[in-house]
């Protein structure tokens, strides 16, 4: 059984169908990249898998470690080990990182039937996590993403990943807005946190991030369908010929 099994997934937003039948299997230990032009439905797929309430699933099924993912609320999916790294992480003024992270961490503990960590114990854990991802410990005293630069927000996503230790990591354009150094650090963090029990789904439209994350599987999403799947060589073909150049004839063009 694959960790993530997506069958014929259809979804719409505001009555417009964006995903028109997605099939995808991701096994433990694998890294998959979903590539495609703007508007092809990549971010929609990431958000639908995470349970964003603005998207309505109209068909198909998704299982995560054998559980019916679509029947679970967004927070249940998170507690079960699914993590979405946001393209644009939101700011929550006045809420300190350490407080936010402890609340999130303890929800996962509760869901797993484990005792919650008190402030002191969690603080100890957080320190080691912050050190592990090479962040300034002062970060944890700041409000969630408030006044963070684009790079800091993405590093902060990696810190959250480090604390919550998800098994399925969905990265929605984690490379957007990052300079080369920040990209290397963020991707390095993602790699370091990806143990043998994890799987990663990378959504991107640039090949650059793939040089760091090294996915074994590439899928091209256009017009709400996966029109082509292959190995790393597919990413190089896209780089050379563009998305239109590699789309099989008869496939829907991207809107």
């Amino acid at each position: 059984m694959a960790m993530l099994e997506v069958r014929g997934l259809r979804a719409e937003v505001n009555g417009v169908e964006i995903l028109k039948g997605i099939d995808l299997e991701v096994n433990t230990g694998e890294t998959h990249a979903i590539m495609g032009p703007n508007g092809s439905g990549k971010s929609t797929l990431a958000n639908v898998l995470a349970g964003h309430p603005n998207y309505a699933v109209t068909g198909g099924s998704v299982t995560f470690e054998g559980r019916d993912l679509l029947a679970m609320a967004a927070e249940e999916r998170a507690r079960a080990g699914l993590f979405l790294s946001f393209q644009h992480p939101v700011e929550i003024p006045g809420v300190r990182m350490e407080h936010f992270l402890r609340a999130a961490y303890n929800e996962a503990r509760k869901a797993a039937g484990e005792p919650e960590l008190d402030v002191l114990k969690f603080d100890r854990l957080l320190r080691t996590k912050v050190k592990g991802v090479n962040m300034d410990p002062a970060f944890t005293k700041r409000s969630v993403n408030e006044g963070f630069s684009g790079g800091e927000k993405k590093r902060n996503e990696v810190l959250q990943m480090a604390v919550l230790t998800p098994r399925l990591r969905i990265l929605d354009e984690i490379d957007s807005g990052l300079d080369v150094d920040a990209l290397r650090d963020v991707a390095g963090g993602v790699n370091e946190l990806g143990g043998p029990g994890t799987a990663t789904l990378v959504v991107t439209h640039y090949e650059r991030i793939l040089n760091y994350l090294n996915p074994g599987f590439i899928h091209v999403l256009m017009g709400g369908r996966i029109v082509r799947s292959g190995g790393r060589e597919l990413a190089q073909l896209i780089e050379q010929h563009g998305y239109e150049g590699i789309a099989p004839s008869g496939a829907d063009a991207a809107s």
Partner: protein
Amino acid sequence: MLLQGDGSVGEFYSVALTKARQQADTGTKMTHIGKNTTSRIISKGISAGHGQNTYRGLVKVLPGAEGARNFTQCDSLLIGERAGAHTVPYIEVANPSASVEHEASTTKVSEEQLFFCQQRGLSREDAQSLIINGFVREVVRRLPLEFAVEADRLLAMNLEGTVG
């Protein structure tokens, strides 16, 4: 509040909450009389349901209040589509050396904030109270710990069932 003695200081911090069809009209008066008097007003308003919050405040600087300074910050948080916030500052200055500042902001508990919290494992209800506690933190953190805890609880209790 009357700031009569030279160099006297006045501070006013408030949190107002309206829900259902409640309307609140809250604020303060700061009257600067003495020289070099300073005052600070921080007002936080939360409106849920059809709730309407109005901040109405008077900052008055009398002719003798040489070098008076006031800073007023008025922040409103809206929950849902039908809530409203209104800010009505009255400023009367009779001494040209005075400095009076007024800042106001209105924000909404956004779907993106709620989803972000849910994606990290918090329920929608908990996400909303977290966001609200963050919004009022600037005021609540000035309270003694026991009161601060009480204030957070009171807010959570009063906002139960308002999450969108």
